[in-house]
């Protein structure tokens, strides 16, 4: 699963893979368009629905946070 998420991230925003900070959105690594596209691909790939309440800076602060979010939603 992790690999697939990283692939999606790579497709939309390569920088996100190398980013080591903890606020990708504020640091301008990932913009809102990219977030929306990543969310759309994650939903399709993992058959989950990522509600607006999950689309917050905290869940997109780095690649690890995105992986954790998908894991959490798949377990629900």
């Amino acid at each position: 699963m992790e690999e697939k998420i990283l692939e999606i991230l790579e497709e939309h925003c390569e920088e996100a893979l190398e980013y080591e900070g903890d606020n990708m959105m504020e640091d301008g690594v990932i913009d809102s368009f990219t977030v929306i596209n990543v969310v759309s691909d994650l939903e399709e790939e993992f058959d989950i629905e990522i509600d607006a309440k999950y689309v917050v800076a905290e869940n997109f602060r780095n690649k690890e946070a995105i992986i954790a979010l998908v894991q959490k939603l798949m377990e629900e």
Partner: protein
Amino acid sequence: MQLISYSFVILWGFVFALYYLVPKKGQWYVLLGASLLFNCIGLRGFPLGLLLTGITTYGCGMYLGKKLDQEKEALKQCTDREEKKAVKAVFQKKRKKVQTLTIVFNLGLLLFYKYAVVAVPLVERATGSGAGFLERVIMPLGISFYTLTAIGYIVDAGRENCAVETDLLKILLFLAYFPSVTQGPFTRFKQMKEEFEKAHVFQYDRMLRGIQRFVWGAFKKLVIADRIGIFVDRVYSVDVASVPGGIFACATVLYMLQLYADFSGYIDMAAGVSETLDITLPDNFRRPYFARSVAEFWRRWHITLGNWFKDYVMFSFVMSGTGRKIGKACKNKWNGLGRQVAPVIGTMLVWFFTGLWHGRTVNYMLWGLYYGVIMSVSLLLEPKYAVWKEKLSIKDGKLWSLFCMVRTWGIVFLADVLIRSGSLAQAGEIFTSLVTRLHIGSLLSAEITSYGLGKYDFLLLLMALLIWLVVSVSEERGLDVRAVIAGKPMVVRWICYYGIVLLVLVTGIYGGSYDTAAFMYQSF
């Protein structure tokens, strides 16, 4: 009551002393009392609008909390995913209904105060009719700010992104917190609740840093913004045909700095006051004029407003049922570009509302549309930039960065002509004069000193801007300027402190017919 006034400094002093004297658990009551007092003194009356927003926000939060608990109980009884989905949908519908009602009520209050209370008495006076009831209605302080802040809480509570508050008084403090109530920054309940509830111990260093930040804010406001304001107001009030385009260009560049100095000055003062009370407010500016694109500019300018619109308008729309339907339909039809339709609509919505929030004129609507189009186009074309740069053999470097910065200034410059002009017609005339009658030499002639600022005022302004630039460059390089100064020998340290205080006291714009303390963003 303005942040730069004797009455505010007295209030701040009393609050500061009392705050560290009372038991730690009671400190937030001191803040609440000060915030209500600030409102009452500022309004010379009772903040009824604020109270109504507070009560409805609190009530909505309590309802959401109850329904969320009931939903969790109901979910425990579910056996499969589909059943869970159905239960969630039922509770979500109930929550949305109450959230929508509360938001509509509060937006209605905002519209009532912003439009009816301002417009109806004007009409009544002009026509000599009407009961004059609205003449007596008091406009609440910072209604645009606290209404959006309240909406943020209502949405966050429904999304479980913050805990539901069971104490009405804490909601009132969150909305009315006195240093930031009039102009922000926009705060989130989760963060502010932590700040208000923790035990605050007096720290000499923190107090000193807070006062330094307050004085720095006053420097930007009184020495820079209000000085520039004299020139800009004068230039923009004369007949466009009688002024060379070069003077308008100069006035608009200065206006860009005035807006920044005025608003970030206020934020520095609000953050400084909060720092003395051991409360941290979110950053609202990160040196926006160093931005290399418009998108970056808006990530650095009024950060908390941008985040508010992104979280509560952009993502809410794109992730909503309608947004998803549009996104899916367009993606199926046009694939690559089609998937960008919903985000583009979201961006345009954000900028439409940003324009509307800033002003009620056509100029502001166009200003919002202008940024919406630029942001959408630049985000859509972003993947192509790397290709174009390679084709044109453009290398990243200082020169390229400078070019990108200047390009961003140019885009902001055009937008600022639009919002500074009194009308669309005036903006049109100014744009024409910038092209047809630039007469750049006028900037070096005596004419430049005939708009309220003399030679020495310009020299003083230049010096103040240089100080600001040095501080900004240092901060951009990651330096904590206050910590650097604190680490210097005592003589150097106190020369810096007294120097800024003296500059504010001696060269600040005070008194006379010019309204020194009115902050520009207060009118938004």
